């Protein structure tokens, strides 16, 4: 089946655009739901109305964010069908399940109890309301679980078997899919990054109040909650990031090489903490990959394999192969992949003709080569290499910012607990500007994960070029621009509404102050 390359690019662009927008809103929901749940718990434990009003203020901001998260989210699910129709058939038997479970287990919990959380203050008991708030938090995070199980599976497909009769992958082990190492490390790293963002959100807005010398007590107490929460979750975020990178090293060595700009593999590979890539560097040439770099010797081997002398393959070895390290070249994998594609076609033809002997022979040939099926659709070996600059810079931006957030939480928490926060206005400014950085880190993490695994929709199995719907390009172009316009308009409205609410501040608390 011939697929127009421009269709693939537009389909990717549309998916990237919608995912990028969706990802602006989801992480905040993942974390802020827990922060308001903690604040409400404090209210229920202490019985202090002050905390109820504080909870309600942050909940108000959550609702604004939540609505646009839903708006940008519904499209993600259906796009697998509308724009990635081949994908939906070839792996739908595995991929559909987590999406359905997500709906049943998470979305209903979220949406049912969301209504109680917002409108049930006077309709249900205090404890029932608190339970609802916690269930919204758990529900939204469970939806992250299932979607990341699905995503983790795309990065490291397990628990499946290719069925030549139906020409698709079929699930043979549900538990392998759920307990996929790539799934849990992605899930934990992603949700904890959401918690970090939510903590930054609360701290940043509160810092703005302090800088404006208004709502002082509200701001300080909010920072106390958010910085405490933020410190713990950011440390966890670093731990899961490390775990996540180790799984990338094992399952997606090409992605790791691109993340690190590692062109030549070696034992005891260094880790580049800061670097500027040489733009004219090509795979396999003799040029230095970096113009400038700061590196920690043996760091990459240590982090990836927990051994200082471990061998880490570079892009060159992964493309051209290495006998010494038992790495097949992409050209060889392509040869075997094409063999698998041909065998599958022969199997289908033999089946049509009712020739069982031919069928058995073709099936045998297919199974011998099926591990490289995806490579059969590549045109050149270099197609197997993702964009190194995009992946490298995105990854390093994420790691750098993640480290900065840990430091920021430590400092802000220290100042809060010693009641010296207002004196350190520079740190308040730093906290304020760290919120946009939080969003940058979020998108950078997503780019690392998704650009770094190109050209694969399913690692080694299905390249994006084979995964699209079989339609002409123009409908996708049209919807791309419609999404770009609509989502941008909604984003503008969201930001304006959010900032208006922030400027108004915790109104309910003020109503009290003159009593």
């Amino acid at each position: 089946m011939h697929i127009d390359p421009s269709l693939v690019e537009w389909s990717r662009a549309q998916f990237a655009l919608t995912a990028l927008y969706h990802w602006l809103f989801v992480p905040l929901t993942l974390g802020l739901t827990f922060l308001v749940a903690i604040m409400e718990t404090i209210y229920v434990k202490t019985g202090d109305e002050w905390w109820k009003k504080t909870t309600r203020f942050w909940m108000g901001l959550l609702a604004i964010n939540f609505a646009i998260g839903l708006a940008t989210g519904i499209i993600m699910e259906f796009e697998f069908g509308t724009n990635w129709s081949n994908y939906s058939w070839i792996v739908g038997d595995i991929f559909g399940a987590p999406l359905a479970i997500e709906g049943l287990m998470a979305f209903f919990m979220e949406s049912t109890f969301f209504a109680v959380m917002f409108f049930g203050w006077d309709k249900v008991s205090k404890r029932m309301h608190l339970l609802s708030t916690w269930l919204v938090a758990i529900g939204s995070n469970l939806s992250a679980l299932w979607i990341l199980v699905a995503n983790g599976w795309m990065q490291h497909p397990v628990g499946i078997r290719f069925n030549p009769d139906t020409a698709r992958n079929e699930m043979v082990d549900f538990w392998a899919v759920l307990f996929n190492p790539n799934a849990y490390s992605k899930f934990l790293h992603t949700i904890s990054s959401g918690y970090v963002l939510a903590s930054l959100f609360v701290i940043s807005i509160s810092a703005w109040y302090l800088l404006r010398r208004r709502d002082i007590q509200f701001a300080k107490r909010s920072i106390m909650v958010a910085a405490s929460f933020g410190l713990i979750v950011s440390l966890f975020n670093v731990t899961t990031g490390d775990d996540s990178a180790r799984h990338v090293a094992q399952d997606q060595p090409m992605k790791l090489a691109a993340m690190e700009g590692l062109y030549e593999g070696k034992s005891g590979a260094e880790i580049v903490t800061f670097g500027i890539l040489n733009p004219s560097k090509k795979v396999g040439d003799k040029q230095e990959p970096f113009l400038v770099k700061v590196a920690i010797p043996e760091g990459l081997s240590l982090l990836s394999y927990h051994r200082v002398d471990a061998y880490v393959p570079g892009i060159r070895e992964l493309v051209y192969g290495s006998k010494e390290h038992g790495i097949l070249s992409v050209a060889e994998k392509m040869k075997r992949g094409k063999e698998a594609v041909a065998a599958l076609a022969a199997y289908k033809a033999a089946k049509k003709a009712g020739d069982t002997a031919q069928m058995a022979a073709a099936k045998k040939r297919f199974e011998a080569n099926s591990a490289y099926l995806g490579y059969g659709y590549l045109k050149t070996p270099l197609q197997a290499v993702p964009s190194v600059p995009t992946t490298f810079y995105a990854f390093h931006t994420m790691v750098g910012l993640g480290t900065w957030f840990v430091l920021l939480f430590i400092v802000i928490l220290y100042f809060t607990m010693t009641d010296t926060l207002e004196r350190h206005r520079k740190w308040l400014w730093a906290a304020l500007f760290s919120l946009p950085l939080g969003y940058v880190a979020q998108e950078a993490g997503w780019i690392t994960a998704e650009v770094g695994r190109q050209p694969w929709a399913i690692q080694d199995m299905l390249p994006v070029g084979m995964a699209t719907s079989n339609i002409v390009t123009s409908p996708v172009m049209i919807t791309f621009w419609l999404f770009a316009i609509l989502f941008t308009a909604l984003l503008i409205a969201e930001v304006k509404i959010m900032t208006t609410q922030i400027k108004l501040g915790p109104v309910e608390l003020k109503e009290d102050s003159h009593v």
Partner: protein
Amino acid sequence: MFNSMSYLHLQQYWWFLIGVLAGLFVFMTFVQGGQTLLWTLGKSEEKRDLIVNALGRKWELTFTSLVMFGGALFASFPLFYATSFGGAYYVWMAILFCFIIQAVAYEYRKKPGNVFGERTYEVFLFINGSLGIILVGAALGTLFTGGNFVVNDMHLSHWTKATYGLEALLSFFNVAFGFMLFFLARLLAALYFLNAIDDEEIARRARIVLRYESGIFLLLFLYVAGSILTMKGYAYDPKTFVVHIEAMKFLHNLLAMPAVAVTLAAGIVLLLWGLGLGIFTQSDKGIWPAGIGTVLTVLALFLLLGYNHTAYYPSLADPQSSLTIQNSSGSRYTLVAMSWVSLLVPVVLGYIVLVWRSMNRTKITVEEVESDHHHY
């Protein structure tokens, strides 16, 4: 329990669940119907706020039902997901746009600084409730009338018309199906308002809507039901899976499956009873029989479509490409695994009912809306 079921029974079980989900979704479209009644029933700002807030406690459930319907289809009948969504591209995208704009409208409508103004968000709600539902109806209509697709022997599909699904709107049946759902949504909304809102003026106007629009709905329903029972259907041979066209296939299905016939009859009677309660009595409970009736009727229509060796999504371009519950489903393993998961359905329905009861224990009033800082 599920492990010992035959593949066919699992496929039938999942088609049943898809029918139930579709039925629940259609019932929940009272939210959309209510959005189109905003200006008909709410003659002042505060009355409109009241209506929006009565719907605002439920809209996410409808939204989630749609998402769930998509997810369940993906998991159980992935070939339909791939063929229809990837082929009837414009129709599904248009439906999605109608739901995207709904998702922000409730929260942003009354908020200061919402950039586009209150009226824009009300228009969003209206588009969602009218165009959105009519298109959903037309798309459901194509399950009876078919789509222009071809599935190749690798099970990859493509659409044969450059209008990518919009051609479905040329079929009078599909459009009538859409308008039937549109009016049904408005009627259910009127019944819901009688049940959920404490306001005499809105109740009076809701009963007027019921009186006039029930007639329109019933005419459309009679046309659609009559067409279905007399139209040709795509049947397949259970052994060879060869598809052939059969006159009055759905009537034959109805006669061959008395349980479905009873479900359909019960659904219609309950729906009429609910409408009657709203029109001829002062009762505010009409939403319940009408709601259950809707679920049963939609379920019965789905069972007519998918059971008894019928292609539930006929291909007009190549009849042998038509989708049946047997050739489009997930693998046996996946259906079994998902069937275990489906045991959660009663749990989810249970907590939805409990929450609904505690939230709707007393009817919503203008005062309640005005006194809440967080109101929509």
